[in-house]
């Protein structure tokens, strides 16, 4: 019942349906209901990363002017400094002309040591708890590429194990990416150098792209990512390894803070057996051009889905 003050012209006896008692009863329920409503929102006290007005109204990456982008980068640097006590250098690196990245991975050589996984984690400021890893190394039995036979959790005394081979999987940066197709807000798109990027400040966290990816390459921040202060990589890029907020997607971006500056990605550099190869396919002298030219057998995972990945698994013949 809505408690109402009696009309000034109300005379006793009129409108006998509402008595003082029923008024009090009604207002007691109403007031306690409102109190319960307010109290139910009390977990919001724990909220510490509510976006500022600036963050809320931030424009889409492709619509930011250079001046606005500079402000955004500065804001990110300030945030990181506030949180970690260290000031990073956040750049907005654009793709270069005449460059199209391709990745090749030698399945004859990979020993399954997982150094690439952890080098990537260190380079890209991925959350340690909860754990986010862009690369997943699969152990497959000899003779089969059936991913349903893959083992993710192998941890023997030593690798490689007899009877198995290892296949690391990460974002394939497909030429025809299903994740880009399904994102309702264009938060992810493919750039001219072939890297599929995510605007972390635009993503709404619907996880449709995660459902769409045939390679299980995309990760979601279920909680606020935590990176130890002493492990923070201060060389950051806006679309790359700058710290991500809670509730957005992330994935391998070919270490664009390195690759767009001309360096190899962290996974390529750390691989102890040289199984990973990376380069500009448009350069005929690059390693990847050599591989795609000379190797007779190379495969793209799940090629039949039409995603046209940029990732080629090759063998030493």
């Amino acid at each position, binding site marked *: 019942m809505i408690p109402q003050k009696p009309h000034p012209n109300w005379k006793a006896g009129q409108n006998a349906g509402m008595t003082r008692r029923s008024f009090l009863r009604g207002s007691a*329920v109403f007031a*306690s209901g409102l109190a319960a409503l307010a109290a139910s929102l009390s977990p919001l006290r724990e909220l510490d990363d509510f976006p500022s007005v600036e963050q809320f109204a931030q424009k889409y990456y492709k619509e930011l002017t250079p001046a606005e982008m500079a402000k955004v980068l500065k804001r990110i640097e300030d945030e990181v400094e506030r949180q970690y006590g260290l000031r990073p250098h956040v750049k907005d690196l654009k793709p270069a002309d005449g460059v199209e990245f391709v990745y090749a991975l030698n399945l004859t050589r990979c020993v399954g040591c997982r150094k690439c996984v952890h080098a990537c984690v*260190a380079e890209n400021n991925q959350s340690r708890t909860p754990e986010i890893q862009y690369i997943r190394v699969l152990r497959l039995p000899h003779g089969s590429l059936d991913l349903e036979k893959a083992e993710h959790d192998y941890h023997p005394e030593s690798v490689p194990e007899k009877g198995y081979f290892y296949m690391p999987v990460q974002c394939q940066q497909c030429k025809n990416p299903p994740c880009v197709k399904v994102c309702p807000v264009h938060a992810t798109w493919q750039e001219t150098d072939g890297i599929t990027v995510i605007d972390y400040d635009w993503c709404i966290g619907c996880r449709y792209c995660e459902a769409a990816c045939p390679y299980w390459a995309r990760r979601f921040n*279920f909680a606020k990512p935590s990176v130890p202060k002493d492990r923070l990589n201060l060389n950051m890029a806006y679309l790359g390894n700058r710290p991500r907020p809670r509730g957005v997607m992330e994935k391998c971006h070919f270490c664009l803070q390195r690759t767009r500056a001309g360096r190899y990605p962290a996974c390529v550099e750390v691989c102890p057996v040289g199984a990973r190869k990376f380069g500009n396919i448009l350069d005929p002298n690059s390693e990847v051009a050599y591989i795609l030219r000379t190797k007779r057998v190379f495969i793209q995972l799940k090629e039949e889905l039409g995603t046209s990945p940029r990732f080629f698994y090759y063998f030493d013949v």
Partner: protein
Amino acid sequence: MNDKPRVPGVLFILTLVFIVLTVSFSRRKWMEPEPLKAIALVDPDLVQPTTMRTSYVQLVRMQADLSDFDCYACHEKNKPPTLRFDASNNLVIPKEHLDIVMAHGQHNRNNNCFNCHDEQNLVLLQTRDGRQVKFEDSPRLCGSCHGPTYRDWEGGAHGRTGGYWKKEAGETKRQICVDCHNPHSPKIPPRTPLPPPHPLRQADQARMFQEFRQPEGVAQTSSLPYRGFPIRRCDQAVTTGRLEVGDAAGWKPALRSLGSPLAAAAAER
């Protein structure tokens, strides 16, 4: 059917319920999510892009102490060392070089030091047809037998590359054969892998560890760094794991005699 008298009762109960809810909601501990157990970090040393071993060429570049590599400190000039073979035609490694394990090819195919070393001039290497090769040019020696791999290495498909892919931006670092392969036992030794992935939920983590009986909180699975490090005798790299060689018994005492604690630890594996 006059239900009017029941309304006050219902409203009263409702008021009480709302008050109880208000109190419960306001308590901080009400259904607070439990904090996540911290996942053990991986030692940054394990993800350095250093090579698996430190070759002689790298030692030279680093200007390390090369006194152990001075062949003519012990050998006489112009006197080729003699090789000794046992009854089953296996090469007998002399006690001064016990840290070398000859495992270059199966079934003792490469049973002769001077298949690669030049017996007339110990500071050089030689191909099978007698051409001399400097230590810095050792890939040409390797390539003289391992053609396809050498061609792949030249093209970039074999071996490690680091640094810059864009030549204009910086230097591309290519490793040579011996930076990864021990020329006497070239097979890449097995290693302990880094920890497997942790699922998001504690319950799944517990189950994973229960099923596979891995101790929790394992930060790194080896106490030795993965790269080779220079040791005082020759270029036998000490790595983790076991070397798959025919008779491994011989090299353990040699390792222990080197006097370095890490070599001793490796000998204990």
